[in-house]
Protein backbone atom coordinates (compact mmCIF):
# COMPACT_ATOMS: atom_id res chain seq x y z
CA UNK A 1 0.00 0.00 0.00
CA UNK A 2 1.21 3.51 -0.72
CA UNK A 3 0.66 5.23 2.60
CA UNK A 4 1.28 8.90 1.73
CA UNK A 5 -2.19 9.62 0.24
CA UNK A 6 -3.79 7.79 3.16
CA UNK A 7 -1.87 9.96 5.62
CA UNK A 8 -2.99 13.09 3.76
CA UNK A 9 -6.58 11.90 3.82
CA UNK A 10 -6.40 11.30 7.57
CA UNK A 11 -4.88 14.71 8.21
CA UNK A 12 -7.80 16.36 6.42
CA UNK A 13 -10.43 14.26 8.19
CA UNK A 14 -8.92 14.22 11.69
CA UNK A 15 -7.28 17.58 12.32
CA UNK A 16 -4.62 17.51 15.01
CA UNK A 17 -3.73 13.86 14.58
CA UNK A 18 0.01 13.29 14.79
CA UNK A 19 0.98 10.79 12.12
CA UNK A 20 4.34 9.38 11.27
CA UNK A 21 5.26 7.11 8.41
CA UNK A 22 7.55 4.31 9.48
CA UNK A 23 9.37 3.09 6.38
CA UNK A 24 9.99 -0.59 5.80
CA UNK A 25 13.23 -0.98 3.82
CA UNK A 26 12.57 -4.61 2.88
CA UNK A 27 11.39 -5.53 -0.67
CA UNK A 28 7.84 -5.88 0.65
CA UNK A 29 7.88 -2.11 1.35
CA UNK A 30 5.03 -2.38 3.83
CA UNK A 31 5.38 1.10 5.27
CA UNK A 32 3.32 1.61 8.38
CA UNK A 33 1.56 4.57 9.94
CA UNK A 34 2.28 5.42 13.58
CA UNK A 35 -0.73 7.18 15.05
CA UNK A 36 -0.89 9.04 18.36
CA UNK A 37 -3.03 7.45 21.07
CA UNK A 38 -5.30 10.49 21.54
CA UNK A 39 -6.63 10.45 17.97
CA UNK A 40 -6.35 6.70 17.29
CA UNK A 41 -10.07 5.89 17.51
CA UNK A 42 -11.02 8.79 15.21
CA UNK A 43 -8.31 7.77 12.73
CA UNK A 44 -9.45 4.14 12.83
CA UNK A 45 -13.08 5.14 12.23
CA UNK A 46 -11.97 7.28 9.29
CA UNK A 47 -9.95 4.41 7.80
CA UNK A 48 -12.95 2.13 8.12
CA UNK A 49 -15.61 4.51 6.76
CA UNK A 50 -13.96 6.87 4.25
CA UNK A 51 -14.80 6.25 0.61
CA UNK A 52 -11.79 4.94 -1.21
CA UNK A 53 -10.26 3.48 1.96
CA UNK A 54 -12.96 1.34 3.58
CA UNK A 55 -10.61 -0.81 5.65
CA UNK A 56 -13.43 -2.95 6.99
CA UNK A 57 -11.41 -5.95 8.12
CA UNK A 58 -8.79 -6.09 10.88
CA UNK A 59 -6.98 -9.40 10.50
CA UNK A 60 -4.22 -9.18 13.01
CA UNK A 61 -3.35 -7.30 16.16
CA UNK A 62 -0.04 -7.91 17.84
CA UNK A 63 2.27 -6.37 20.39
CA UNK A 64 5.93 -5.40 20.43
CA UNK A 65 8.06 -4.63 23.45
CA UNK A 66 10.83 -2.13 22.77
CA UNK A 67 13.46 -1.91 25.47
CA UNK A 68 15.21 1.38 26.30
CA UNK A 69 17.87 2.03 23.71
CA UNK A 70 21.23 3.52 24.53
CA UNK A 71 23.02 5.31 21.72
CA UNK A 72 26.48 6.77 22.09
CA UNK A 73 28.00 9.44 19.89
CA UNK A 74 31.69 10.22 19.86
CA UNK A 75 32.83 13.81 19.43
CA UNK A 76 36.38 15.14 19.44
CA UNK A 77 36.89 17.92 21.93
CA UNK A 78 40.03 20.00 22.59
CA UNK A 79 40.98 19.82 26.25
CA UNK A 80 43.85 20.89 28.45
CA UNK A 81 45.56 17.77 29.77
CA UNK A 82 48.63 18.41 32.00
CA UNK A 83 49.05 21.88 30.59
CA UNK A 84 49.12 20.64 27.03
CA UNK A 85 46.21 21.07 24.69
CA UNK A 86 45.12 17.71 23.38
CA UNK A 87 42.29 16.40 21.31
CA UNK A 88 40.21 14.02 23.38
CA UNK A 89 37.35 11.87 22.16
CA UNK A 90 34.30 12.44 24.29
CA UNK A 91 31.49 9.95 24.34
CA UNK A 92 27.98 11.19 25.04
CA UNK A 93 25.36 8.63 25.80
CA UNK A 94 21.69 9.24 25.22
CA UNK A 95 18.98 6.87 26.34
CA UNK A 96 15.70 6.73 24.49
CA UNK A 97 13.03 5.23 26.73
CA UNK A 98 11.47 1.92 25.80
CA UNK A 99 7.81 1.60 24.94
CA UNK A 100 5.12 -0.91 24.14
CA UNK A 101 3.73 -0.94 20.63
CA UNK A 102 0.52 -2.38 19.23
CA UNK A 103 0.35 -3.20 15.52
CA UNK A 104 -2.90 -3.56 13.55
CA UNK A 105 -3.12 -5.09 10.07
CA UNK A 106 -6.06 -3.82 8.07
CA UNK A 107 -7.61 -4.99 4.81
CA UNK A 108 -10.55 -3.86 2.73
CA UNK A 109 -12.81 -6.69 1.64
CA UNK A 110 -15.01 -4.30 -0.38
CA UNK A 111 -12.20 -2.62 -2.33
CA UNK A 112 -9.81 -5.57 -2.16
CA UNK A 113 -6.77 -3.71 -0.97
CA UNK A 114 -4.43 -3.97 1.94
CA UNK A 115 -2.69 -4.63 4.18
CA UNK A 116 -2.38 -1.29 5.90
CA UNK A 117 -0.17 -1.44 8.97
CA UNK A 118 -1.26 0.83 11.79
CA UNK A 119 0.83 1.26 14.93
CA UNK A 120 0.21 2.80 18.33
CA UNK A 121 2.82 3.40 20.99
CA UNK A 122 2.72 3.93 24.71
CA UNK A 123 4.67 6.77 26.27
CA UNK A 124 7.04 4.37 28.02
CA UNK A 125 6.99 0.90 29.52
CA UNK A 126 5.33 2.06 32.76
CA UNK A 127 2.42 4.05 31.31
CA UNK A 128 0.71 1.28 29.40
CA UNK A 129 -2.68 2.74 28.53
CA UNK A 130 -3.78 2.84 24.89
CA UNK A 131 -7.23 3.28 23.36
CA UNK A 132 -8.98 0.11 22.27
CA UNK A 133 -9.92 -0.19 18.61
CA UNK A 134 -12.45 -2.94 19.34
CA UNK A 135 -15.35 -0.45 19.02
CA UNK A 136 -14.16 0.12 15.43
CA UNK A 137 -13.19 -3.45 14.49
CA UNK A 138 -14.88 -6.14 16.57
CA UNK A 139 -12.32 -8.72 15.42
CA UNK A 140 -9.69 -6.98 17.56
CA UNK A 141 -11.43 -7.96 20.81
CA UNK A 142 -9.71 -11.26 21.60
CA UNK A 143 -6.39 -10.16 20.14
CA UNK A 144 -6.35 -7.07 22.33
CA UNK A 145 -7.14 -9.31 25.28
CA UNK A 146 -4.16 -11.46 24.33
CA UNK A 147 -1.89 -8.40 24.13
CA UNK A 148 -3.17 -7.26 27.53
CA UNK A 149 -2.38 -10.72 28.87
CA UNK A 150 1.08 -11.15 27.39
CA UNK A 151 2.37 -7.56 27.18
CA UNK A 152 0.31 -5.72 29.78
CA UNK A 153 -1.11 -3.03 27.50
CA UNK A 154 -4.30 -1.62 29.08
CA UNK A 155 -6.84 -0.95 26.35
CA UNK A 156 -9.22 1.85 27.39
CA UNK A 157 -12.70 1.31 25.99
CA UNK A 158 -12.33 -2.44 25.56
CA UNK A 159 -15.65 -4.14 26.40
CA UNK A 160 -14.17 -7.13 28.28
CA UNK A 161 -10.52 -6.72 29.16
CA UNK A 162 -9.56 -9.95 30.95
CA UNK A 163 -6.61 -12.27 30.60
CA UNK A 164 -7.07 -14.67 27.71
CA UNK A 165 -4.35 -17.34 27.98
CA UNK A 166 -3.03 -17.15 31.51
CA UNK A 167 -5.14 -17.43 34.66
CA UNK A 168 -6.65 -14.36 36.30
CA UNK A 169 -4.41 -14.58 39.39
CA UNK A 170 -1.27 -14.36 37.23
CA UNK A 171 0.48 -10.99 37.60
CA UNK A 172 3.30 -11.15 35.02
CA UNK A 173 3.31 -10.47 31.30
CA UNK A 174 5.27 -13.32 29.72
CA UNK A 175 6.03 -11.82 26.31
CA UNK A 176 7.75 -8.77 27.78
CA UNK A 177 11.48 -8.81 27.22
CA UNK A 178 12.24 -8.53 30.94
CA UNK A 179 9.94 -11.39 31.99
CA UNK A 180 11.62 -13.80 34.39
CA UNK A 181 10.09 -17.27 34.22
CA UNK A 182 9.77 -19.46 37.32
CA UNK A 183 12.90 -21.32 38.35
CA UNK A 184 11.95 -24.91 37.53
CA UNK A 185 15.09 -26.11 35.82
CA UNK A 186 15.73 -29.10 38.10
CA UNK A 187 15.67 -31.66 35.31
CA UNK A 188 17.12 -30.65 31.93
CA UNK A 189 18.70 -33.72 30.35
CA UNK A 190 19.48 -32.06 27.00
CA UNK A 191 20.17 -28.51 28.10
CA UNK A 192 22.16 -25.95 26.14
CA UNK A 193 22.64 -22.20 26.11
CA UNK A 194 20.76 -20.23 28.73
CA UNK A 195 18.88 -23.31 29.90
CA UNK A 196 22.17 -25.08 30.55
CA UNK A 197 23.34 -22.25 32.80
CA UNK A 198 20.15 -22.29 34.82
CA UNK A 199 20.19 -26.09 35.08
CA UNK A 200 23.79 -25.97 36.32
CA UNK A 201 22.86 -23.46 39.04
CA UNK A 202 20.24 -25.95 40.19
CA UNK A 203 22.65 -28.87 40.15
CA UNK A 204 25.29 -26.98 42.12
CA UNK A 205 22.70 -26.19 44.76
CA UNK A 206 21.51 -29.82 44.86
CA UNK A 207 24.83 -31.66 45.09
CA UNK A 208 25.66 -32.75 48.65
Amino acid at each position, binding site marked *: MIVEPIVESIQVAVPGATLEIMPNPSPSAQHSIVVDAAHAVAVAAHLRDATGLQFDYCTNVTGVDWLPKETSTTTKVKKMVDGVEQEVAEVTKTTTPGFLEVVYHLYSIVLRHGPLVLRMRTLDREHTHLPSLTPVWRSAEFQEREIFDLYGVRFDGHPDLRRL*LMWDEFTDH*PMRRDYVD*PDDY*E*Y*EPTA*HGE*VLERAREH*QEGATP
Partner: protein
Amino acid sequence: MQRIEDRVIDEQLKSELSRQGIFATSLQELYNWGRRSSLWPLNFGLACCAIEMIATTMARYDLARFGAEVFRPSPRQADLMIVAGTVTKKMAPQVVRLYNQMPEPKYVISMGACAISGGPFKQGYNVLKGIDRYIPVDIYIPGCPPRPEALIDAFLALQKKIDAQHLTGAARPRHLNADQPSEFVVPQFGKHDLEPPKNSELWKAPLVQITTGETTGAAMPGGQP
Protein backbone atom coordinates in the same frame (compact mmCIF):
# COMPACT_ATOMS: atom_id res chain seq x y z
CA MET B 1 1.69 -66.65 58.31
CA GLN B 2 2.53 -67.78 54.83
CA ARG B 3 2.53 -65.12 52.13
CA ILE B 4 0.24 -65.54 49.16
CA GLU B 5 3.04 -65.77 46.61
CA ASP B 6 4.53 -68.66 48.59
CA ARG B 7 1.28 -70.55 48.34
CA VAL B 8 0.86 -70.21 44.54
CA ILE B 9 -0.08 -73.51 42.95
CA ASP B 10 2.67 -75.46 41.30
CA GLU B 11 2.56 -74.73 37.53
CA GLN B 12 2.97 -78.38 36.58
CA LEU B 13 0.19 -79.49 38.88
CA LYS B 14 -2.02 -76.76 37.50
CA SER B 15 -1.60 -77.81 33.86
CA GLU B 16 -2.12 -81.44 34.87
CA LEU B 17 -5.35 -80.50 36.63
CA SER B 18 -6.57 -78.44 33.67
CA ARG B 19 -6.05 -81.47 31.42
CA GLN B 20 -8.31 -83.37 33.75
CA GLY B 21 -10.95 -80.66 33.43
CA ILE B 22 -10.22 -78.94 36.73
CA PHE B 23 -9.52 -75.21 36.68
CA ALA B 24 -7.32 -74.08 39.51
CA THR B 25 -6.20 -70.52 40.15
CA SER B 26 -5.20 -68.18 42.95
CA LEU B 27 -7.07 -65.12 44.10
CA GLN B 28 -4.14 -62.99 43.03
CA GLU B 29 -4.19 -64.31 39.46
CA LEU B 30 -7.94 -63.89 39.23
CA TYR B 31 -7.79 -60.37 40.66
CA ASN B 32 -4.98 -59.29 38.33
CA TRP B 33 -6.72 -60.89 35.34
CA GLY B 34 -9.83 -58.90 36.16
CA ARG B 35 -7.91 -55.64 36.54
CA ARG B 36 -5.81 -55.93 33.41
CA SER B 37 -8.55 -57.22 31.09
CA SER B 38 -11.01 -54.37 31.54
CA LEU B 39 -9.00 -51.18 31.71
CA TRP B 40 -11.55 -48.48 31.04
CA PRO B 41 -9.83 -45.26 29.99
CA LEU B 42 -11.10 -41.82 30.84
CA ASN B 43 -12.48 -40.07 27.77
CA PHE B 44 -10.22 -37.07 27.88
CA GLY B 45 -7.73 -35.57 25.45
CA LEU B 46 -5.63 -32.43 25.58
CA ALA B 47 -3.95 -31.92 22.21
CA CYS B 48 -2.89 -33.67 19.01
CA CYS B 49 -1.96 -36.89 20.88
CA ALA B 50 -5.68 -37.26 21.55
CA ILE B 51 -6.24 -37.65 17.80
CA GLU B 52 -3.89 -40.65 17.81
CA MET B 53 -5.67 -41.97 20.89
CA ILE B 54 -9.01 -41.71 19.04
CA ALA B 55 -7.49 -43.47 16.03
CA THR B 56 -6.31 -46.26 18.35
CA THR B 57 -9.87 -46.92 19.48
CA MET B 58 -11.30 -46.94 15.96
CA ALA B 59 -11.68 -49.89 13.59
CA ARG B 60 -8.20 -49.79 12.08
CA TYR B 61 -6.24 -50.28 15.33
CA ASP B 62 -9.14 -51.48 17.46
CA LEU B 63 -8.15 -51.12 21.09
CA ALA B 64 -11.25 -53.19 21.95
CA ARG B 65 -9.15 -56.30 21.33
CA PHE B 66 -7.42 -55.63 24.65
CA GLY B 67 -10.50 -54.91 26.70
CA ALA B 68 -10.11 -51.13 26.75
CA GLU B 69 -12.75 -49.95 24.34
CA VAL B 70 -15.10 -48.43 26.89
CA PHE B 71 -13.96 -44.84 27.15
CA ARG B 72 -15.83 -43.43 30.11
CA PRO B 73 -16.95 -39.80 30.08
CA SER B 74 -16.81 -39.70 33.89
CA PRO B 75 -13.73 -40.16 36.08
CA ARG B 76 -15.81 -42.15 38.57
CA GLN B 77 -16.18 -45.04 36.14
CA ALA B 78 -12.65 -45.02 34.71
CA ASP B 79 -9.57 -47.06 35.63
CA LEU B 80 -7.01 -45.52 33.34
CA MET B 81 -6.10 -41.93 32.57
CA ILE B 82 -4.33 -41.43 29.26
CA VAL B 83 -2.75 -37.98 29.51
CA ALA B 84 -2.76 -37.39 25.76
CA GLY B 85 -1.19 -34.06 24.92
CA THR B 86 0.27 -30.81 26.22
CA VAL B 87 -0.62 -30.11 29.84
CA THR B 88 -0.73 -26.34 30.17
CA LYS B 89 -0.34 -24.84 33.60
CA LYS B 90 -3.90 -23.58 33.32
CA MET B 91 -5.15 -27.15 32.71
CA ALA B 92 -2.95 -28.98 35.25
CA PRO B 93 -5.23 -28.47 38.30
CA GLN B 94 -8.17 -29.94 36.39
CA VAL B 95 -6.11 -32.97 35.32
CA VAL B 96 -5.07 -33.65 38.92
CA ARG B 97 -8.63 -33.17 40.15
CA LEU B 98 -9.92 -35.66 37.55
CA TYR B 99 -7.27 -38.13 38.68
CA ASN B 100 -8.26 -37.70 42.33
CA GLN B 101 -11.88 -38.43 41.44
CA MET B 102 -11.06 -41.75 39.77
CA PRO B 103 -11.64 -44.79 42.02
CA GLU B 104 -8.75 -47.12 42.84
CA PRO B 105 -7.17 -49.13 41.31
CA LYS B 106 -6.19 -46.48 38.78
CA TYR B 107 -3.35 -46.10 36.32
CA VAL B 108 -1.84 -43.32 34.25
CA ILE B 109 -0.27 -43.46 30.80
CA SER B 110 1.72 -40.34 29.95
CA MET B 111 1.35 -40.15 26.18
CA GLY B 112 3.74 -38.13 24.07
CA ALA B 113 6.65 -35.76 24.61
CA CYS B 114 4.52 -32.95 26.11
CA ALA B 115 2.88 -35.05 28.82
CA ILE B 116 6.27 -36.53 29.74
CA SER B 117 8.36 -33.37 29.96
CA GLY B 118 6.68 -30.44 28.24
CA GLY B 119 8.13 -31.57 24.91
CA PRO B 120 8.76 -28.82 22.37
CA PHE B 121 7.12 -26.33 24.76
CA LYS B 122 9.35 -27.26 27.73
CA GLN B 123 10.82 -23.80 28.22
CA GLY B 124 7.52 -22.05 27.59
CA TYR B 125 5.91 -19.88 30.26
CA ASN B 126 2.59 -21.74 30.15
CA VAL B 127 3.39 -25.44 29.86
CA LEU B 128 3.85 -27.89 32.70
CA LYS B 129 7.15 -29.77 32.48
CA GLY B 130 5.59 -33.22 32.72
CA ILE B 131 2.42 -34.42 34.42
CA ASP B 132 4.50 -36.70 36.67
CA ARG B 133 5.24 -33.62 38.77
CA TYR B 134 1.71 -33.94 40.19
CA ILE B 135 0.39 -37.49 39.67
CA PRO B 136 2.11 -40.89 39.59
CA VAL B 137 2.65 -42.18 36.05
CA ASP B 138 2.81 -45.91 35.26
CA ILE B 139 3.79 -45.94 31.60
CA TYR B 140 5.51 -43.28 29.47
CA ILE B 141 5.19 -43.32 25.67
CA PRO B 142 7.66 -41.14 23.79
CA GLY B 143 6.72 -39.67 20.42
CA CYS B 144 5.29 -36.49 18.97
CA PRO B 145 2.64 -37.77 18.70
CA PRO B 146 3.16 -41.50 19.35
CA ARG B 147 1.62 -43.78 16.73
CA PRO B 148 -1.40 -45.93 17.66
CA GLU B 149 0.90 -48.96 17.73
CA ALA B 150 2.91 -47.24 20.45
CA LEU B 151 -0.24 -46.67 22.50
CA ILE B 152 -1.22 -50.33 22.07
CA ASP B 153 2.29 -51.30 23.17
CA ALA B 154 1.85 -49.11 26.25
CA PHE B 155 -1.41 -50.91 26.99
CA LEU B 156 0.29 -54.28 26.75
CA ALA B 157 3.14 -53.05 28.94
CA LEU B 158 0.62 -51.83 31.52
CA GLN B 159 -1.20 -55.17 31.43
CA LYS B 160 2.09 -56.98 32.01
CA LYS B 161 2.85 -54.66 34.90
CA ILE B 162 -0.55 -55.34 36.49
CA ASP B 163 -0.16 -59.08 35.94
CA ALA B 164 3.17 -59.13 37.75
CA GLN B 165 1.90 -57.31 40.84
CA HIS B 166 1.70 -59.19 44.12
CA LEU B 167 -1.22 -58.37 46.35
CA THR B 168 0.92 -58.52 49.48
CA GLY B 169 4.43 -57.47 50.31
CA ALA B 170 6.19 -54.16 49.95
CA ALA B 171 5.59 -53.88 46.19
CA ARG B 172 1.81 -54.32 46.45
CA PRO B 173 -0.42 -51.91 44.52
CA ARG B 174 -0.98 -48.50 46.02
CA HIS B 175 -4.66 -49.05 46.77
CA LEU B 176 -3.81 -52.06 48.97
CA ASN B 177 -1.28 -50.07 50.97
CA ALA B 178 -2.87 -47.87 53.62
CA ASP B 179 0.30 -45.79 53.96
CA GLN B 180 0.22 -44.67 50.33
CA PRO B 181 -1.74 -41.53 49.46
CA SER B 182 -5.03 -41.93 47.64
CA GLU B 183 -5.31 -38.27 46.70
CA PHE B 184 -2.71 -35.91 45.34
CA VAL B 185 -2.36 -32.21 45.93
CA VAL B 186 -4.26 -30.07 43.41
CA PRO B 187 -2.10 -27.09 42.45
CA GLN B 188 -3.50 -23.59 42.86
CA PHE B 189 -3.10 -20.69 40.45
CA GLY B 190 -0.36 -18.49 41.89
CA LYS B 191 0.93 -15.04 41.00
CA HIS B 192 3.86 -16.30 38.97
CA ASP B 193 3.44 -20.08 38.73
CA LEU B 194 1.34 -22.94 39.98
CA GLU B 195 1.52 -23.40 43.75
CA PRO B 196 3.13 -25.72 44.59
CA PRO B 197 5.15 -25.95 41.34
CA LYS B 198 5.53 -29.70 41.90
CA ASN B 199 4.47 -32.41 44.33
CA SER B 200 7.81 -32.81 46.14
CA GLU B 201 6.78 -36.08 47.81
CA LEU B 202 5.99 -37.63 44.47
CA TRP B 203 8.48 -36.17 42.03
CA LYS B 204 12.20 -35.90 42.61
CA ALA B 205 14.39 -34.50 39.89
CA PRO B 206 16.33 -37.40 38.37
CA LEU B 207 20.04 -36.92 38.82
CA VAL B 208 21.52 -36.45 35.39
CA GLN B 209 25.00 -35.66 34.27
CA ILE B 210 24.68 -32.61 32.07
CA THR B 211 26.74 -33.27 28.98
CA THR B 212 27.60 -30.73 26.34
CA GLY B 213 29.59 -30.75 23.14
CA GLU B 214 32.39 -28.80 24.84
CA THR B 215 35.68 -30.63 25.19
CA THR B 216 37.66 -29.98 28.33
CA GLY B 217 40.66 -27.77 27.82
CA ALA B 218 39.19 -25.97 24.82
CA ALA B 219 39.47 -22.67 26.66
CA MET B 220 43.10 -22.38 27.68
CA PRO B 221 43.94 -20.07 30.57
CA GLY B 222 46.10 -17.04 29.97
CA GLY B 223 45.18 -16.77 26.29
CA GLN B 224 47.70 -19.41 25.28
CA PRO B 225 46.97 -21.10 21.98
